[in-house]
């Protein structure tokens, strides 16, 4: 919004500010002149940008999402490189299936973050940064990293599967309506009421896949229902719009209208709910592991680790705490990224000016903004909610 005004030096009184703050938009932004100056600023900011550029900009501006993205990337890279993935060896000295020599003590974590001049043992990882399980002879860092790998694999497979199924079911149901809609939605209802635990138990016992794949496929095949309903609702609204009629007049096939014309408009919903779904999926996977229906030994996942070491919390808490912290960290990051994506895709989204912007822009702006907020609405918002 700073593009539309220049600060007038020497204007101290508030009334001066109000006068000098009257926006003077360039001609191509004439619309902004009758709207709130804030919107004029917002429009100037996004002028000439494509939709994806706008979304990307807004997303990169979301601090919580960016920090979360960095933390998540750090966890993923750490897990992927440290203990090796598949045939690729990792840089950490132990693997998750290595038997490590028992330590003399209780096997507590050797990682230290307290420098020597503060009375600690210096910043360093030590032999077993997250401790060691002296009963089984396992290095906990390697075990946890393997757990992260498994859990991440599961939620990626789960995300891909349930997104594809959910999008197809929702799109067909919303676009065709009538009996297709009734049939698919009743089918969705049936899937919703079947308890996931039973599915996981069956997948583990009857399908006979090795650990993580059976869990991932079982979860992926039964968690698409929420997304299907969301996509259906979007399609119900979008199929009545003019651009669909235009496409139909131009003799586009149904499949082309669904996938080329309508689907791109629902990308925001899909991306956001897939992110949140993956976060929820990790919790579900961990809960299954905790109840003994998830990934089984010799494979391991974060939930399985929590289950395995729940009795150790009182005596050797590091065995139990770390997998839980990793679960919380990953899910929290996914939540924040989802939140950032939702804000980025929301066309109603208005940038909230922070204190610094307000100070720079002068008191008039701040006052107007405060008034607008006191009323509980701004032009931008009431325009948006009317749509």
């Amino acid at each position, binding site marked *: 919004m700073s593009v539309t005004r220049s600060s007038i030096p020497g204007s101290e009184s508030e009334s001066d500010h109000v006068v000098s703050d009257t926006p003077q938009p360039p001609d191509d932004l004439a619309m902004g002149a009758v709207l709130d100056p804030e919107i004029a600023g917002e429009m100037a900011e996004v002028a000439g940008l494509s939709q994806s550029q706008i979304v990307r900009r807004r997303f990169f501006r979301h601090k919580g999402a960016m920090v979360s993205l960095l933390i998540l990337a750090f966890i993923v890279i750490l897990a992927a490189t440290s203990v090796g993935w598949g045939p690729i060896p990792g840089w950490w000295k132990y693997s998750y299936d290595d038997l490590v020599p028992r330590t003399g003590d209780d096997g507590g974590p050797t990682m230290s973050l307290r420098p020597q001049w503060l009375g600690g043992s210096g910043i360093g990882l030590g032999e077993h940064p997250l401790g060691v399980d002296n009963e089984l002879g396992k290095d906990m860092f390697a075990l946890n990293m393997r757990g992260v790998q498994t859990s991440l694999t599961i939620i990626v497979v789960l995300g891909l599967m349930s997104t594809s199924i959910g999008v197809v079911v929702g799109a067909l149901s919303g676009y065709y309506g009538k009996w297709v809609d009734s049939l698919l939605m009743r089918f969705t*209802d049936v899937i919703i*009421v079947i308890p996931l635990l039973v599915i996981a138990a*069956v997948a583990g016992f009857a399908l006979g896949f090795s650990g993580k794949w059976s869990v991932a496929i079982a979860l992926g095949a039964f968690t698409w229902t929420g997304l299907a309903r969301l996509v259906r609702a979007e399609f119900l609204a979008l199929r009545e719009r003019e651009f669909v009629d235009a496409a139909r007049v131009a003799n586009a096939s149904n499949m082309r209208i669904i996938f080329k014309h309508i689907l791109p408009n629902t990308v925001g919903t899909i991306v956001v709910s897939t992110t949140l779904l993956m976060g929820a999926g990790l919790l579900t996977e*961990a809960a299954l592991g*905790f*109840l003994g229906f998830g990934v089984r030994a010799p494979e391991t996942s974060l939930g399985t680790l929590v289950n395995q070491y729940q009795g150790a*919390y009182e005596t050797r808490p590091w065995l139990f705490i770390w997998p839980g912290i990793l*679960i919380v960290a990953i899910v929290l990051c996914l939540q924040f990224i989802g939140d950032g994506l939702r804000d980025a895709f929301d066309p109603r989204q208005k940038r909230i000016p922070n204190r610094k912007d307000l100070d720079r822009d002068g008191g008039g702006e701040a006052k107007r903004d405060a008034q607008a*907020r006191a009323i509980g609405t701004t032009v931008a918002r009431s325009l948006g909610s009317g749509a």
Partner: protein
Amino acid sequence: MFVYICRRIVAGAFVMVGASFILYLLMTKAGDPLAFTLQISNPTQRAAVIGTVTETLSLDVPPVERYLQWLSRLVLEQDFGLVSTTQQPVWDELTRRVPLTLKLVSTATLLSIVFGVMTGMLSALRQYSGFDYIVTFTTFVFFSLPVFWVAVILKAWGGINLNDWLRDGAHFSVTFIVVMSIFAGVVGASFAGGTKLRKTVTGAISGAIAALLMSWMSSTQWLLDPGFGPILFAVLGFGIAAGVVAVMSGWRNARARNAALITAAIGIVSYLPMQSVFDDAINIWMLLGWMAIAIGVATAVGYAVGGFDKGQSARTASIVALLMGVLMFVDRMMQSWAAYSASSVIRNRPIKTIGHQEERLDGSFWLVANDTFSHLFLPTLALMLISVASYTRFSRGSMLEVLDQDYIRTAQAKGLTKRTVVVRHALRNALIPLATIVAFDISGIIGGAVITESVFQWDGMGRLFIDGLREIDPNRVMAFFVVTGTFAVVFNLIADVGYAFLDPRIRVGE
């Protein structure tokens, strides 16, 4: 509407039959129902048990036919079959477990709704304030907590550390008091709107109150023998009256204010006489009766002093009476806490981590009530963490949506007070979408909480399901499914019809 409801019920029945068919077939593929017989070493005995289980579960007929047999028995004879391992009727298990599950989950759900909706509404009213950011971040963290991990930690912490701390005299450490007071100060400051000065003052006051309160509790060892006593009860009573008046009718409404204050005074005067009513022979129905009397008296007071707006005064006074009744009940329970804690079967370790009651405890209504509380405390906390977060999130969103509406601006433009706009216009409309969520969650109550019940060994529906699944017993799993599924279908219908009833803009079945 009638046609719509009928159509929904028929569709629900079809969904239930389809899902139960799939579920039954899945159960036949989930494992070996005879696996537990391997523990029996005597071969003839084992053969006999295998024979009985085969008979119970009809293992000698093909799965589809088995399902039809199960379905016809259920529909024609209302027979859920027998538990495969114990040969007890599943129906007996259901009737034993449903009340226990309701006790656990409904307490947690009720408290979560109250706390969650309150926090969410406040955070929406202070959008983009420090308070809002704190609340949002906290809900995100709660959403990300794996409930089993938290439950295990709570179990260990409550069972050992909390009980040890109570044994050692329930003194707060200085660090704890300082940290909690600073936290209270920050929340208070971030919640107060307006100038920096006002924020600082509010923060300082709330921090000081927290520090004083905790120091007092610590030095008098209040938690070991809690209770309000007549003086504190009077202060709290007038506090409740003031708060309810401020929210419900505003201080300028003299009649409602008088009604609330008179009700509070009646409640305070009746504090001492009521102590003899709350004797050991009382039961839950008598308590509810007394509550009804209290509300009746309050309504009468409201009507007597209400003048031209009797309804509002009566409403305000009844809420005051309700809250004071609850306060009196809590106070009476607290008075028995020390006796409960010292009783021979509790032995001063009152925070329980296993089961739903102390079987050997033989005592009055109040001891049993305290026993229920001490068993409910930790599992309820575990359950609440997550549902509070979702209610907060949802009610915040709903409130923000409503505050954006044109009719709110109109209400403000015509000069209504902020309180009227928020409570009368915004809050009521924001609660409508919440009603559907609540209806849906109530249907989930009966299903219990599989993980929390497992960790705290609470004998509820969740454990019936998970034990049945572990032992591959279709009878138990299907019984669980029929009960929870029916509730889900019915309450979903109630939610949709209720939504249409509450919000005239919504039409169903057209």
